[in-house]
């Protein structure tokens, strides 16, 4: 029995390795495995998402593949089946051994893949992180999907447009001690004070990212503030719960819901009109920018220093910021016009 299991595993491993070899043989480049000396048309770039089969990364890798095709490189995608802290290490090692010119990775863990990434950099691979950063000392640049200011701004802009710049709004957040949510809310309050004097933020409620609590808090908001015009929820659980609650209540059509959510989650409520628009970054653009960033680092166009600039195809010119961060830009707004183009 034991031997059977062992040989089955060995066969699987061998098959896996063969697949990787074939992939990299297609994408391999004979001479260039050093930073700065390869041209765009013979770059081989490996994308390593947190896990395969994840619609979010399927979307981002589509963007990455587009970018790589545009500059004529070879695109490959490998990764673990499951998102575990050290699951990516073997794929990083393999990519380094194949002499890939660049590794584009969404770090499953800030530190676990670091040693492997640094070994890859020593043999000449450019390392670009996107979506989730590793420590700044184990990659060249990080492509960041959004910053707090942009997220706060986008949500205020959306709600202001939807209620025509005046009325009462409430915020339904996650838990009262969620750091990033609180930072966004603070910035939203500043923005409302500064530019939207006619919008009154009547209450900030906390649904703890729990469906029933978010329902209860939404109901309490609606009952307590009879003139409420919109609820802004900067958390994916909260926005779906608020939309679900309102969509089949007497408040449907009177109180709008907006905030941060994913298209699959919000499709139902955009179709029935409870939600006019909501925001998140566009993972396809994120992957596309990461692909071009990999090109820029691998060809030596940039070194990852603050102030470096590079061209990112259809997205235009980007500048590297502090700590080697490249910011994708403002969040992407999803509405009934474009929601069917996305599946994540």
């Amino acid at each position, binding site marked *: 029995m034991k031997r059977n299991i062992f040989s089955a595993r060995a066969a699987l491993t061998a098959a896996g390795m063969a697949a990787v070899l074939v992939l990299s043989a297609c994408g391999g480049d004979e001479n260039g495995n050093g930073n700065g000396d390869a041209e765009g048309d013979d770059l081989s770039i490996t994308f390593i998402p947190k*896990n395969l089969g*994840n*619609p979010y990364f399927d979307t981002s890798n589509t963007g990455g593949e587009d970018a790589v095709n545009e500059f004529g490189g070879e695109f490959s995608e490998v990764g673990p089946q*499951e*998102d575990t802290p050290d699951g990516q290490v073997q794929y990083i090692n393999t990519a380094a051994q194949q002499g890939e010119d660049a590794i584009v990775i969404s770090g499953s863990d800030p530190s676990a893949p670091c040693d492997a990434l640094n070994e890859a950099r020593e043999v000449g691979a450019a390392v670009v992180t996107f979506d989730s950063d590793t420590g700044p000392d184990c990659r060249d640049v990080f492509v960041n999907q959004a910053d707090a200011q942009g997220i706060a701004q986008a949500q205020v802009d959306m709600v202001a447009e939807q209620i025509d710049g005046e009325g009462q709004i409430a915020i339904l957040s996650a838990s*009262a001690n969620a750091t990033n949510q609180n930072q966004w809310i603070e910035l939203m309050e500043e923005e409302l004070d500064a530019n939207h004097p006619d919008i009154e933020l009547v209450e900030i*409620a*906390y649904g703890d990212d*729990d*469906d*029933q*609590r978010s*329902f*209860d*808090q939404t*109901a*309490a908001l*609606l*009952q*307590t503030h*009879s003139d409420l015009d919109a609820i802004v929820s900067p958390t994916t*659980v909260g926005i*779906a*719960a608020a939309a*679900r609650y309102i969509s*089949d*209540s*007497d*408040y449907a059509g009177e109180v709008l819901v907006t905030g941060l959510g994913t298209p*699959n*989650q919000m*499709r*139902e*409520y955009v*179709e029935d009109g409870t939600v006019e628009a909501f925001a998140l970054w566009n993972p396809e653009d994120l992957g596309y920018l990461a692909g071009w960033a990999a090109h820029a680092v691998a060809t030596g166009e940039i070194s990852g220093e603050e102030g470096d600039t590079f061209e990112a195809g259809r997205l235009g010119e980007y500048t590297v910021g502090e700590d080697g961060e490249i910011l994708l830009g403002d969040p992407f707004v999803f509405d009934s016009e474009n929601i069917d183009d996305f599946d994540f």
Partner: protein
Amino acid sequence: MSTVALSKPSHMRNAQRFAKNVVTSREMAIVLVILAVIATATSLNQNFLFSSQGWRDLLLTPSILMVLAIGSAIVIVTRNVDLSVGSTLAITAYMTGRLFIDFPGIPIIGVILIGVAVGAGLGLINGLLVAFGKVPALVVTLGTMYIYRGVVLTWAGSDRINASDMPREFLNLGTMQIATIPLLTIAAVVVLIAAVYWLNSTRSGREMYAIGSNPEAATLYGLPSTKRIIVAFVIGGALAGLAGVMYAARYGTVSAGAGMTWELNAIGAAVIGGVAIFGGSGTVWGAALGAILLMTINRTLPIMGVPDFWQRAVVGALIIGAIVLDRYLAARQTRKLQEARDET
């Protein structure tokens, strides 16, 4: 040998005795507390009761916890406990979504039956381990709580079921009303009536109390303890399975974290409702009322403007208060019976 009654025979007529029992019962005390909570909330905001939305929330919100609490009460009456019902709910709720995705056009009644059957199966595992393994239920179900949660975490990963994944007819079941009474509430009440009938009026139901009251005596008397305990866990699991399907219909979103800590709410509801944690006494309709009280208080506190932390503290105080009351009543009862014995 003649039998001597330890307390004086009642001289009241049946109808009078029934009325007295109802008025002085533990359950009536909870009904009064629930009415007081509703009255307070309504005086603060009349929409709480006198709006169609408020009325619906009042009935709909406790329905899922009612079903779970009835199952928990049946298990607790046999001097066991089931900590895995929250995880069971998560499995069947996620499975409900998966069934609709993987088998388009699957009949809704089929999904409900599969959910109940899978829940019963998971309960059967608990029951077999407790009855034959002779391991305390607290330990067994603590283990299966983590195992079942692990199963759904592995299955779902970071993925979630969205409202648009499920047919609209199914989601409508979660909000539909018949003569202003929500369908989910009707389902919970039907379950309640069946459970009350079984525990009060059938031989096997009464044996549950005997087993929980004094396991050794029940075994010596020849009651099929092993079988009854397994049945209790199977019913508890089946009801958790049903609650999972209701959860999917109600919230429209299911992630791997669904129903987290609901097992504690269910046990809390049963304890508040007067089900003794050491078995042998308490009623399922007490547990159902406990669930109504818990969920109604949860909805009321945000309307009253009570801060987040205190909302949980109030629930904790309720549970401790209920147990202290139980101890007091039990001690008084023992004293009375002893006095009666000393007199004879």
